[in-house]
């Protein structure tokens, strides 16, 4: 088998492979940068929580207007935003930390969602419609996910400095005259938008995995937020290519293959990454302490 057969032929011969690659690439560019900020803010599990939080909105959309993607998307976005805003508000107004209030609200939301779905009876159909699959991307699905990624990148570029400032020192931003909660809300809106669009197009696993794994891997290679974002996107795209080829050649399901490729990138980073990877830490433990980086125990 030549290199051409191995790498290029599947994408050249089959439209669904090209579409899958395009969709996964768009997803990587939209979701992975958000993942970097989630990692920075120690909200890495939020993607998962939000995945459950959008269910009641989707179910309500389904109950009101049947299997209409638009209605379900609007519903999902509404409940997702409501949950994130409420959780954020509770975290800011009360001593309860944001992760705890997120957990509380997403569980309430999930309970409501399961209830609504069961009212209508058949949840099989709903789940099929709700969760897309990477091998069946139509024109509208591709359009949706690319528009979503473009919007995300543009908005991130606009609020980039505020967002970084808020991640690293929220107190500073609040003290120096607001902007903090606004940036936070913009950020949460972007997360919800990407999740809702991504679920319908590519499925839960793909979206949450593409959001978090490349970001977590990039953390070990780059120091600046910008560097991490660029790397995370690259890791995401590479895992998409590798995962699709594995699915094609080894006859395994596509989205787990893509996510496991990203997972492999993460594990390699944990071991070999120059910024806090295990090899680095082991080597650093030998020379006399007090030398160079990192000054604090930031990387654990």
């Amino acid at each position: 088998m030549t290199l051409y057969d191995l790498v290029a032929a599947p994408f050249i011969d089959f439209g669904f492979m090209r579409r899958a690659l395009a969709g996964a690439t768009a997803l990587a560019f939209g979701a992975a940068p958000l993942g970097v900020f989630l990692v920075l803010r120690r909200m890495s599990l939020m993607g998962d929580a939000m995945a459950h939080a959008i269910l009641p909105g989707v179910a309500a959309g389904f109950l009101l207007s049947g299997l209409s993607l638009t209605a379900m998307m609007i519903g999902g976005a509404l409940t997702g935003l409501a949950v994130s805003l409420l959780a954020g508000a509770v975290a800011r107004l009360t001593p309860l930390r944001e992760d705890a209030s997120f957990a509380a609200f997403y569980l309430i939301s999930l309970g409501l969602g399961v209830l609504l779905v069961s009212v209508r009876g058949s949840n099989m159909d709903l789940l099929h419609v709700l969760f897309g699959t990477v091998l069946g991307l139509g024109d509208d699905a591709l359009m949706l996910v690319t528009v979503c990624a473009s919007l995300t990148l543009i908005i991130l570029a606009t609020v980039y400095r505020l967002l970084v400032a808020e991640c690293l020192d929220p107190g500073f931003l609040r003290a120096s005259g607001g902007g903090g909660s606004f940036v936070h809300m913009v950020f949460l809106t972007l997360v919800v938008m990407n999740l809702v669009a991504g679920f319908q197009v590519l499925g839960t696993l793909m979206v949450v995995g593409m959001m978090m794994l490349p970001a977590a891997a990039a953390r070990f290679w780059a120091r600046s937020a910008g560097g991490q974002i660029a790397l995370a996107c690259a890791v995401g795209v590479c895992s998409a290519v590798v995962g699709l080829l594995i699915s094609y050649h080894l006859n395994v399901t596509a989205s787990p293959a893509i996510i496991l490729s990203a997972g492999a990138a993460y594990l390699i980073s944990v071991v070999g990454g120059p910024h806090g990877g295990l090899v680095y830490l082991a080597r650093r433990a030998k020379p006399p302490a007090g030398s160079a980086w990192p000054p604090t125990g930031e990387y654990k």
Partner: protein
Amino acid sequence: MIPTRSARRHTLALLSAALMALNIRAAHAADAPLSVVASFSILADIAREVGGPDVKVDTLVGPDGDAHSYEPTPQDAKRLSTARVLVVNGLDFEAWLPRLTQSSGFKGQTIVASTGVTPRPFESGHDEDDHDHGEADGHDHDHDKAGAEVHGHGHAAGHAHGAHDHGSNDPHAWQDLRNGMRYARNIAEGFAAADPAHAAAYKARAAAYEDRLQALNTRITSQFAAIPAAQRKVVTSHDAFGYFGQAYGITFIAPVGMSTDAEPSAADMARLIGQVKRDNIRAVFVENISSPRLVEQIARETGARTGGTLYSDALSKPGQPAATYLGMFEWNAKQLVNALQP
């Protein structure tokens, strides 16, 4: 004398009235509809057509149910124990039924609807196409995985995807209308034997029903005949259409190496697309490869049409297009003709 006579007459009149009343009641008892249990919805529909008002038909596996892997309930045993006639398909279709008839203590008469049908052997498998592929690399065909489960999908009828537990003959004989006519005749004969008082009515209704089936059969045959034979190729995940294909000259091709339940891999998709292109297949009826979007993608890439739902082993719920045997057949034929038409 006259009063006596009149008294006597009165007595006689009373007696005869009483007798008549008795007679009527007896007649009513005979008129109480014959209690029939049919193993699944298609047989129940034929039994109702043949039995008319003279029978009361209960169904064990109702509309949208899967008769391949049915778990009988205590209710079923109870219904069966009081039934006088049981209608089954035969050809080892209802593997779960013998145990149920034993445990319920059913003492009535059993009608095997498929008696006299020429059984069609199952093809040795769907693997035949493999030699065409360079890469017949032991991708195991997942048909066996699916067979044993009960499929609770709400959408299409309870078609069994995957291997069936029955023997080497294809039991889905009702997918040929001529066999359906034989079913009606067998059921009428069985009813006549169990309830001789209405034998003529059963036979008359069966004959009328057969005429309707025959008319539909003629219509469908001419519809398919209008499509060139080389174009009558369909990919479907159902393996229940062997008789249908035989009757109307349609080749039903199973999607190679694709499980209908799990999400397919890119390799599965590539293989199916290759198969559709190579064999010049016009239509793809694969409803449950996890998402309709995959089928749409296959259609987009090959130019084949995607078909609607085909009903194979069960009727749909009342009010839907395939609520009767005739309706089901007409629906399936329409879907296929629409998809195959140039």
